[in-house]
């Protein structure tokens, strides 16, 4: 629902004052909640809740043929589903555009070998490789989707385990794989450099991170950056506004700082030993 001018003015002045409606500073995040390994049939999964945004990510693995252009690399595919559970606007094909935007930005963010190395997923050059299928389900939408999705994806990949291939036999043109029978004999993925996405909104004259839905309405422009170890893997401007080059550079700088901080916070949580008690999602 759209805000009225007075509410927008109030938010705008608050941002100027560096005191937002909920008391946060411009560069402050809302608390988040994370749970990993909650989908039994997935190779790795995570659920992240950021205020009212709830994202569930599950990773499935398949054996596939590598692309001709990258014969010695595995594949990673993202699929975003904007469930009509999140908001009735997503009913039918309503969420398709948003889903595609997120999907493409993730694909771009993970594309560079430097950010996410797919060569370990190759089984036999040109013939067989693992394909990671990352399914993202938006259960609730409360603003700041890109950030929440990228964090949840990284958390899910962190816990993803790939079965160990013991031997590869070439029988004529047929490739036979022997996969380890022990369930726990798996290889963990290296996701330390997997990118984190941060949305920076320009409200008034200032840049703000983690905007609430109301603040998103007040933003004149927004930039989404994906950062992997202080380096940009993708940048896109969302929304219909435009920015002065200097403001743009300023927001990119802020984005990269926030991303590295988010990354540290996420890895810290992921390294905590999680107990056996499953909590589940949707409160």
């Amino acid at each position, binding site marked *: *629902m*759209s*805000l*009225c*001018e*007075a*509410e927008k*003015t*109030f938010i705008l*002045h*608050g941002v100027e*004052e560096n*005191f*937002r*409606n*909920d*008391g*946060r*500073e411009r*560069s*402050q*995040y*809302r*608390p*988040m*909640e*994370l*749970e990993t390994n909650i989908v039994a049939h997935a190779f790795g999964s995570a*659920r992240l*809740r950021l205020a009212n945004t709830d994202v569930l990510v599950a990773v499935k693995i398949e054996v596939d043929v590598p692309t001709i252009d990258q014969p010695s690399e595995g594949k990673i595919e993202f699929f975003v589903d904007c469930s009509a559970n999140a908001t009735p606007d997503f009913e039918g094909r309503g969420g398709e555009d948003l889903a595609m935007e997120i999907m493409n930005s993730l694909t771009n963010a993970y594309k560079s070998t430097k950010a996410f190395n797919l060569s370990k997923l190759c089984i036999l050059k040109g013939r067989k490789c693992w394909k990671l299928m990352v399914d993202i389900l938006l259960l609730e939408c409360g603003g700041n989707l890109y950030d929440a999705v990228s*964090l949840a994806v990284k958390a899910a990949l962190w816990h993803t385990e790939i079965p160990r291939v013991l031997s590869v036999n070439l029988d004529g043109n047929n490739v036979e794989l022997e996969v380890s029978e022990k369930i726990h004999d798996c290889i963990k993925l290296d996701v330390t450099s997997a990118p984190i996405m941060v949305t920076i909104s320009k409200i008034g004259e200032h840049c703000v991170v983690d905007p609430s839905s109301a603040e998103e309405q007040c933003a004149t422009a927004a930039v989404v950056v994906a950062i992997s170890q202080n380096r940009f893997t993708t940048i896109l401007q969302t929304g219909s506004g435009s920015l002065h080059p200097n403001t743009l550079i300023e927001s990119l700088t802020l984005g990269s*700082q*926030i991303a590295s*901080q*988010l990354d540290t*916070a*996420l890895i*810290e*949580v992921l390294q*905590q030993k*999680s*107990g056996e*008690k499953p*909590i589940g999602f949707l409160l």
Partner: protein
Amino acid sequence: MLPKINIRLAENRVNTSVAVNQRVPKIFTPGEIISEQKEFMRGHGTYEEDVYLKASVAGVKEQVNKLVSIRPLKSRYNGEIGDVVVGRITEVQQKRWRVDTNSRLDSILLLSSVNLPGGELRRRCAEDEHMMRQYLQEGDLISAEVQNVFSDGSLSLHTRSFKYGKLSQGVMIKVFPSLIKRSKTHFHNLPVGASIILGNNGFIWISSTVSNEEDNVGGFVQNLEEVVPRTDRETIGRLRNCILALAQSKIMLYDTSILYAYEESLKYNVADLLIPEAMVDISILTQHKLNLSENA
């Protein structure tokens, strides 16, 4: 120095319930038999089948003499005449506005039930109809009173008093309508330096205290130039977070409970009140204080 980012594991989630071994009333589920005798009258949330009176919603039983009704635990707002509501204009139509008041159907605000700017008293003419969007446009927030309930359950509102009308700068938050305690007044000028409107429909409006009421004639003025000072802003932000904390723990909202929560929250930063532990802490302390003052 950037503020710290807080990510927690779900298993460290805090329990938000603050109810202390209070008696939980029986909760009926749809289809459950309430009574086998025919002497009761069928109220809201019930239906008759064969000889039984059954519940049609999940909720608690309420009985007035022979009239039995089930009040749902969670529902949209059911308006009653005289209620104070906060609403948002969704559509400008001929001679009336549609207002979102969290009810099942949009409420109606007739052009004839508002005070004209300047407080003029006269019949509404065609010119007023053209001016409607200047008075209130889509997205604007208003406070109003329920004037009438139509047969389909939609509400007719009026703003024929100086205290009602268009709302200016501030924050609106949404809570369950059932958490708003009915009281003599829903307009409060809190001593901490902020005004609050507790709409019966669960919409709560927080703003800085309006100094002179005379300025507000007609209630169509929005001062967009005025910058709310930092101190007021902190109070508003703190109240917002306190109310959300109370609502999360399902504590009834009225001036006393909000003020208690505000006092208890002073040991935290405003932004820290977003952290679940702090929210629960405030709810528990407020509940405790409320119990003490009740017993006293």
